[in-house]
């Protein structure tokens, strides 16, 4: 009688030959996952190399077992079928036999899903198709929101005025705090940077020009837009995504109320209306931040600083900033609402929608701002 021991840590497994050319697998020790149960690969190799046709089990020495043993036995049995080895399960602990029978009761369904990575060409194709689909969906959303806007202009859009006012309140007055903080500090920073450079050749007074022009033309609108995208765009996406999860959007649709008009339109109107106002406010607070540096650090007179600012800012700078902020408002509202409406129906999908609303809008804000800079430069403004 030959004996061979297969290395299994903690739990042990011994293979005994029986007289009729089969084998008895003798399990012993603690067959629990925490004690480290190895794959049955080496055992199977051994069974194959010895051309064993029949396997029985002896588990009388097993002191404790859990799912680890069941998984091991299941794998073993599955492979044994493939190798054409007969198995006699009666030697297994009764609980294991019953669990194995339960696991085998319903045959594995061919769902066509697996965790295997598809080949690289297929992955490139899949992502190209996904990009094209996303682009089409984005354009469709843009078109639908234009239709909703048209309905609004014809006074036929269905939404509640009270919703509009609530949203205006949320993305206007309630955003003042954060916009104040950010704009003031940005103005302060601009003032410091300018002061250090301009002091070197005694042109400290031009700090006022630097801060005023930068705030009105560029920084005011872009900072406000970024703050609103993180604050309000993400909120839109999360609200609409949750409504979608909750079938609230379906409930509107079954009544024949367009979700685009009822949910998206008031959000877009509110943000497009509030963004220019917030931007003008942000410009003013930013200039104030610069003035704190100019007056406090450089010793300029407040009136002098104010007059220098007034001379520096052209009306066109202010208008360009305000016009851009309107466009940015459209971008933030569109991105937030679109990601929310397209959101999947789960908690993680809503989180993803909020994230991607912020990412989408910031990317488009910067791209559009760059385009504005080039176009306005070419046009000579």
């Amino acid at each position, binding site marked *: 009688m030959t004996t061979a021991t297969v290395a299994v840590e903690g739990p042990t497994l011994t293979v005994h030959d029986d007289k009729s050319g089969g084998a008895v697998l003798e399990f012993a020790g603690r067959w629990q996952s925490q004690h480290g149960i190895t794959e049955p690969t080496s055992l199977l190799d051994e069974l194959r190399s010895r051309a064993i046709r029949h396997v029985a089990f002896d588990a009388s020495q097993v002191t404790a077992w859990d799912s680890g043993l069941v998984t091991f036995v299941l794998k073993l049995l599955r492979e044994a079928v493939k190798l054409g080895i007969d198995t006699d399960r009666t030697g297994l602990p009764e609980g294991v036999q019953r669990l194995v029978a339960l696991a085998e009761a319903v045959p594995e369904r061919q769902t066509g899903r697996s965790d295997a990575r598809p080949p690289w060409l297929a992955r490139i194709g899949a992502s190209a198709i996904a990009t094209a689909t996303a682009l089409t969906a984005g354009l469709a959303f843009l078109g639908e929101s234009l239709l909703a806007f048209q309905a609004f202009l014809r006074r036929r859009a269905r939404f509640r005025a009270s919703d509009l006012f609530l949203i205006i309140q949320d993305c206007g007055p309630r955003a003042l705090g954060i916009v104040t903080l950010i704009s003031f500090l940005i103005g302060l920073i601009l003032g410091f940077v300018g002061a250090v450079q301009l002091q070197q050749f005694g042109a400290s007074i031009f700090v006022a020009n630097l801060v005023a022009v930068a705030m009105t033309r560029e920084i005011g609108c872009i900072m406000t837009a970024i703050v609103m995208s993180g604050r309000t765009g993400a909120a839109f996406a999360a609200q609409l995504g949750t409504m979608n999860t909750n079938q609230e959007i379906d409930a509107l649709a079954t*009544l024949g109320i367009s979700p685009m008009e009822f949910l998206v339109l008031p959000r877009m109107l509110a943000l497009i209306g509030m963004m220019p106002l917030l931007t003008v406010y942000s410009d003013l607070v930013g200039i104030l931040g610069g003035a704190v540096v100019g007056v406090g650090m450089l010793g300029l007179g407040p009136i002098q600083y104010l007059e220098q600012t007034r001379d520096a800012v052209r009306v066109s700078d202010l208008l360009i900033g305000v016009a851009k902020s309107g466009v940015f408002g459209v971008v933030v509202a569109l991105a937030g609402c679109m990601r929310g409406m397209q959101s999947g129906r789960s908690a993680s999908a809503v989180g993803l929608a909020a994230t991607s609303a912020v990412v989408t809008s910031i990317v488009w804000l910067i791209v559009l701002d760059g385009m504005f800079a080039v176009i306005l430069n070419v046009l000579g403004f």
Partner: protein
Amino acid sequence: MAYGSYVIQHDLDFVIRRGEVFVIMGGSGSGKSTLLNHMVGLKQPARGDVVYDGESFWGSPPEARDALRRRLGVSFQAGALWSSMTLAENVGLPLQTFTRLPARQISEIVSLKLALVGLAGYEEFYPSEVSGGMLKRAGVARAMALDPDILFFDEPSAGLDPISSRRLDDLILELRDSLGATMVVVTHELPSIFAIADNSVFLDAETRTMIAYGNPKTLRDESPNPTVRTFLRRGAVDAAAGGAAA
């Protein structure tokens, strides 16, 4: 009915008669709710049409579809009440949007509908402040707001205790009898099915089509299909058929 190229159900053909309680039944994942979505106009069937009183739904222009939609009321699985509005505003919104009634009259109708589902006095509660069973009943009240010809219920008894579930069944029957509306109910709850259904269709997940059509009590006893009999007997061994075969 399909999601992309994955066909859920095919070759569905059945008639729902006016004033009956019609049950769509089948195992989990057989496409009952998807079928409901097709019938109420949320999802366009991959092929085929839904016809109301001889009027094609998917073949009609969007305006006609919206008009048809207003003749349907849908009560969703978890109520799907608009969370930013009170129960009264939820039930009142369809009335506000589609009728020219003055506000006072609307609030009277709203109170009536809420009273019909046993929620009188809860007008000013928000959906997050009431229980799951109350949400469902409020959903029913909202579905009834425009006095629809056909009311759809998606799994009305799912997640309810047996008594609330029984009450909702009674409510469905009561509303059918008093309003004369047609009720279409998606469910797999056997007690409900036998209590309310006049007629039914059985969707099978294996063959992906309807395998039975008729009164569930009759189907339980006489259906030639073993899947249907087993389902309607809650998986109990099919003694009658076994005897006949032996």
